[in-house]
């Protein structure tokens, strides 16, 4: 293994990839040695998936070099990447449910004449070689998620992938299955293949991987760390950021008023039907910013949706500005004074196919009616008012909202939400993906709200942002709100440890 590892299997240098409104990769680098398991770490939105899609030929980078096995490459489709020996197992599997395991494995890469028995035997042999127990004659719809993942891995091996990318492979696995997967990829690495393991579960990275590269904000912040020598807390710190230049000065403190949001014993299920928010108790008062930190996927989304009324609670009470809103529809909450900046700006907060005007009036269109019709001029004036007041750069208010940049989308969204004079602002990842200027502007708007005696609940993965803005800080892990921190005194290491689950509160 040491000899074989002397050469790079994958070398990515200075990869840039921009999407409308977002820069996903801003000069990212990655070096994977042959015969190793390499972790790619980063928060959601850090650019991991984009970088892997570049490597597997799904996206073409705007700039940057791609070298596989010492040869410079330009992939224009996944097929090109496969031909170069790069295979990827996506989070959403791409299997035909009614086909058998063997049929799925050879689909699109089979000999012209298919002898079912022969194919099954060959797939079986391949599975045995790597300990990927899977009956080749069973239809895929009968398989568990873990078994389906093995079929995906077999597909890549069938095509002789020498570099295998696994995108958050353990998200769908039980702990026992995850351990098994660790054994399988180790065997593949011992054979001289390279495995890229995308995750933000640090204990798994520690257990399975040889090296780790950390991405943040589309850039590589730490390259090829030796996993054996680095503490998980340090990896967590790298993921969420050091003292960042992007963050404003800590604002002056502000007197706190009476509670505007009180959660008592709130439970809710996530999209997979499993408990995602467990016994949440939380109070937000007028004139304060309460921060929620944590690695994404630990219940923050459910917390926000439960408060906004988009996800039902299974138990508990939610009192918003004196109104008990548990079980009430979203409109009741907005009438009570909620402003919600959802994590998915386009798709939840904004309707992507509609115009800027149509999106600007999403909350207030009922007030812009003239008879059954919308008063077009009044809507337009309202929109132009928002655009001017919140400095949204927009060509024409009748253009599709999708044509706006990320920062301007967020300004319009925030402007719209704040124009209703809210009592509570609930902001989920409000600055993610924005440039420095945009981050500053959004943060200032939140502070202004606090100073106007509004309560602010800020959910963010940017620890620096939380440490700077929040008056009180909680960490979320495994669906629970953990220890409260004082942002003025807590150290990054303490919080990072809580986020990484290293304080023993879970598992």
């Amino acid at each position, binding site marked *: 293994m040491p000899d074989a590892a002397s050469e790079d299997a994958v070398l990515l240098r200075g990869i840039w990839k921009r999407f409308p409104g977002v820069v996903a990769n801003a000069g990212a680098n990655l070096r994977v040695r042959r015969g190793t398991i390499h972790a790619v770490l980063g928060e959601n939105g850090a650019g991991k998936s984009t970088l892997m899609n570049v490597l597997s030929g799904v996206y073409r980078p705007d700039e940057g070099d791609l070298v596989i096995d010492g040869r410079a490459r330009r992939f224009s489709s*996944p097929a090109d990447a496969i031909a170069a020996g790069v295979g990827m197992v996506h989070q959403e599997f791409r299997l035909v449910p009614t086909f058998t395991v063997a049929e799925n494995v050879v689909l699109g890469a089979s000999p012209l004449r298919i002898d079912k028995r022969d194919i099954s035997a060959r797939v079986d042999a391949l599975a045995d070689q790597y300990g990927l127990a899977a009956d080749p004659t069973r239809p895929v719809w009968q398989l568990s998620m873990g078994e389906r993942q093995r079929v995906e891995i077999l597909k890549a091996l069938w095509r002789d992938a020498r570099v295998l990318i696994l995108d958050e492979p353990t998200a769908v696995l039980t702990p026992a299955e995850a351990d098994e997967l660790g054994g399988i990829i180790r065997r593949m690495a011992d054979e001289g293949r390279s495995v890229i393991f995308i995750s933000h579960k640090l204990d798994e990275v520690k257990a399975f991987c040889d090296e780790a590269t950390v991405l943040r904000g589309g850039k590589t912040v730490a390259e090829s760390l030796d996993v054996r020598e680095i503490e998980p807390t340090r990896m967590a710190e790298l993921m969420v950021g050091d003292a960042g230049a992007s963050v404003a000065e800590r604002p002056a403190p502000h007197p706190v008023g009476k509670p505007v949001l009180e959660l008592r014993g709130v439970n809710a299920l996530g999209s997979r039907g499993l408990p995602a928010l467990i016994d949440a108790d939380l109070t937000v008062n007028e004139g304060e910013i309460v921060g929620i930190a944590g690695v994404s996927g630990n219940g923050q989304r459910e917390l926000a949706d439960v408060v906004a009324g988009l996800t039902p609670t299974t138990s508990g009470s939610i009192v918003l500005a004196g109104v008990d809103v548990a079980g009430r529809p979203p409109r009741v909450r907005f009438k009570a004074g909620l402003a919600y900046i959802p994590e998915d700006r386009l798709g939840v907060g904004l*309707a992507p196919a509609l115009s800027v005007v149509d999106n600007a009036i999403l909350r207030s269109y009922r007030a812009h009616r003239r008879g059954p019709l919308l008063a077009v001029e009044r809507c337009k004036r309202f929109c132009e008012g928002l655009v001017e007041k919140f400095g949204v750069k927009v060509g024409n208010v009748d253009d599709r909202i999708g044509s706006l940049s990320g920062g301007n989308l967020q300004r319009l969204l925030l402007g719209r939400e704040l124009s209703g004079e809210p009592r509570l602002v609930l902001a989920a990842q409000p600055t993610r993906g924005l440039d420095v200027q945009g981050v500053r502007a959004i943060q200032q708007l939140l502070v202004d709200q606090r100073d106007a005696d509004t309560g602010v609940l800020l959910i963010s993965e940017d620890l620096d942002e939380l440490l700077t803005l929040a008056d009180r800080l909680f960490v979320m892990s495994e669906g629970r709100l953990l220890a409260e921190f004082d942002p003025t005194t807590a150290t990054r290491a303490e919080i990072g440890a809580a986020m990484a689950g290293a304080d023993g509160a879970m598992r």
Partner: protein
Amino acid sequence: MKRPVLVRRDRVLPGSQAFAFVAGLVVALLFGAILLIASGHDPIEVYGRMWSSSFGSTNGLGRTFNRAVPLALAGLAVAIAGTMGLWNIGAEGQILAGALGAAWVARIGETWSSPALITAMLVAGTIAGLVWALGPALAKAGLGVNEIITTLMLNEVAVRVVRYLLNGAWKDPASLNFPVAPKLPEAARLPGLFGRAHLGVVIALVVIALVAVVVNRSAWGYELRIAGSSGPAAAYAGISLKRKILTVLLVSGAIAGLGGAIELTGNAERITEGISNGYGFAGIIVAALALMRPWAIPAVAVVFGAVQVGGSSIQTLGVPASVADILQALILAGALIAGVLMAYRVRWVSTRAQDPSGDGLEAVAGV
């Protein structure tokens, strides 16, 4: 070896839509000309007849407009449901139900004055279409039952109901026991407009304009567009998706039902089970070509109607039905393919590299 793969364009080229449609049409007509020459016909004569029978004369224009009316209303019914991402595949049955409702009014209102009778027939047809969409609408809104399947199945039911009535209660006593309904009274005949065009052309245009205004300008239409653009965004805005699904499918059915009533009073002598004549399915193509936009529907429906009228007319020149059908299909396919190519481009990739996860497998369901 290379093989073609469709790749979605990052952005649609400006002005490309109109150009693509025309290009698709020209290519289709050129292919059609080859086909005609191969089958021993003069393409200039055949295309000339297509033109003269559909647009080239007052009577031709009337035919085309009359044919465009059910196509446009069916297309509008599909399009308004499509605005919310729903597929009403049941316009065929709703048209039949609308014709049935109108025919029922004509049975009880034989003695009424013509304007009263026709108005009542159109209203009854609209209500009947709405009723025909009620089941699928409730099932979709309440239980999430796929509306494609329910609306499609009710098409069959509508045919059976008409057949049942024609074989029983509605059988014309003067028909020597043939299963046909009595002829409609003269008062039920929709007044003419010009040439052979009837007043249904105006009614359809008014309805389309109304729907376009409602979709684009009203609060209701606004909520519809939000819900169609993004379900979560609609929920976020406090819009009840269930109520929207229910109402939009009912409106869709009502529009198709009106189309059936107009077809009955405008073109038919009596109700038959063939009165919907595939308009409900053609409406899907109309709506697709109009990109689900109400304003675009009249133009698409007129062109579609002209293709049908012209395609039938050239058979009287001696062009076999099979060739005429291929010609019609070519023209529609040309326009549709052009529409697809606007959003995608063709790229050639090497076949040596197989593709386990990329573009080529888009159609395969994720597990």
